[in-house]
């Protein structure tokens, strides 16, 4: 006779839902008065966004250009640091004495979010886009460093062994096996990180590190919702445009995914 034990899935789902409800209570999300207030405020906020105000557009276009520069320079500087560190962290090239400390360094850098790095660089460089670019560069270093050493370690071991076995050194192995074999993976990760950095750069201004974020925060704090909506639409347009261009580059350069 079959036992009538409840399925494991139902128990797991029940426990997960119970935990979520308890936490929602702690966070005030089950407070009916607060929820009602939230819905009313949101409605008021959304109503205040329309129609977007075109007046600050010239200022915002300049800020958007600055945002893109922060993202681009931050990405380039981050890549310049991430590429050599990723090679030093690659276990197929270096031993644990080198890869271990480098991986620890990359993990440490990666632990701090880009916005917090920007705060650090605002302290170091003062307010302005330079701090934003450095913040993006620092985060890119940690994040892309990890992505790249995983790409390098994904290179076919037989190719690495075959080139290594001719008696070359590590620099030659990198030039003649790792970089050409991993080129597509590297490019793919670069585009991904640049897309991410454009988004991240748009809020660098929240901490005084330049870009359109400064205006976004200002409009929000001064309750200038129509101006805010214009800035948000502009940011959205730029992000969509960058994603589209990045997709075009991928399709042009990278091989198509194999058919299922």
């Amino acid at each position, binding site marked *: 006779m079959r036992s009538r034990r409840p399925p494991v899935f139902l128990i797991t789902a029940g426990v997960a839902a119970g935990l979520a409800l308890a936490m929602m209570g702690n966070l005030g999300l089950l407070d009916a008065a607060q929820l009602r207030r939230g819905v009313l405020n949101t409605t008021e906020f959304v109503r205040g966004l329309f129609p977007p105000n075109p007046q600050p557009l010239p200022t915002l276009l300049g800020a958007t250009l600055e945002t893109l520069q922060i993202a681009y320079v931050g990405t380039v500087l981050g890549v310049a640091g991430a590429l050599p560190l990723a090679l030093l962290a690659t276990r197929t090239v270096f031993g644990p004495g080198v890869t271990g400390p480098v991986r620890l360094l990359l993990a440490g850098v990666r632990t701090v979010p880009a916005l917090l790095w920007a705060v650090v660089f605002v302290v170091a460089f003062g307010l302005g886009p330079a701090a934003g670019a450095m913040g993006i560069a620092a985060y890119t270093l940690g994040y892309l460093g990890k992505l790249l050493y995983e790409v390098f370690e994904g290179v*076919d071991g*037989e*190719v690495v*062994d*075959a*080139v290594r*076995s*001719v*008696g*070359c*050194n590590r*620099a*030659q192995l990198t*030039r*003649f*096996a790792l970089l*050409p*074999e991993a*080129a*597509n993976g590297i490019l793919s990760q670069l585009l991904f990180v640049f897309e991410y950095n454009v988004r991240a750069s748009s809020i660098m201004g929240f901490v005084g590190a330049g870009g359109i974020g400064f205006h976004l925060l200002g409009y929000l704090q001064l309750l200038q919702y129509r101006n805010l909506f214009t800035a948000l639409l502009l940011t959205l347009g730029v992000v969509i445009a960058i994603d589209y261009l990045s997709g075009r580059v991928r399709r042009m350069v990278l091989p198509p995914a194999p058919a299922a």
Partner: protein
Amino acid sequence: MSQAALSAFPEPAPAPAVETVGLSCWYVPGRPVLRDIDLAVAPGSICMILGPSGSGKSTLLKVIKGLLPLNAGTLSLFGQPVAGRTHARSRRALERSVAWIPQHLGLVRSLTVLDNVLSGTLARVGTLASLVGAFPHTLRDEALATLDSLGIRAKADEKVFSLSGGERQRVAIARALMQHPTLVLADEFVSQLDPLTTREMLDIVQGIARTGVAFLITSHEVELVAEYGDRVVFIRDGRKIHEGAANAFTFASVMTLMGR
């Protein structure tokens, strides 16, 4: 001593290109993948290694090449022992004269044919020159001549991924030859070719062997052993269970060795 008196002494036999005595290798202590392999391959000869899948054929080649550790026994290349930490420098020098063609060839697909072939010379070229692709003209000429002798000079500037299986095989042979090897270890390198191309490749191998280069080739192609090999070694479960002249080896011999 007169010339006549000298000629009364027989010339000493040349040292084997590779000689192993009691060679053993394991990944996990107590579970050897290769046990007590005794082997000697004369210069300029072709030794075919046969055995079922998983018998240790590829592992044997990797141990001889130095890609896997020699856990027990001795290994000599051209009469010089290469095992042991004390001989690290001389071992590396000796290992450079041993070319290894892995099962899937280990070619860098996104590099050109010429770059792949030139990578066989990396141990002879300065690091900086090779990193910027400034190989000496003599090496470029030699690489092109090697490609010419293998019938694929016209493909020198093409990327490897655009080549056919037979053409890739020739590129792998050319890269091996650019090492100026005296021993070539080829791991089932004709296993994925059609019968006609397989014979073309083995004809090339036979021609190279006549110049004094020894070949150690793992294979499943029993019918080609007698035709192209000088010696045959049969391995099963990591042990050598047969060694003899290749010309007497038949499919019936394999069945006998497999106990069927």
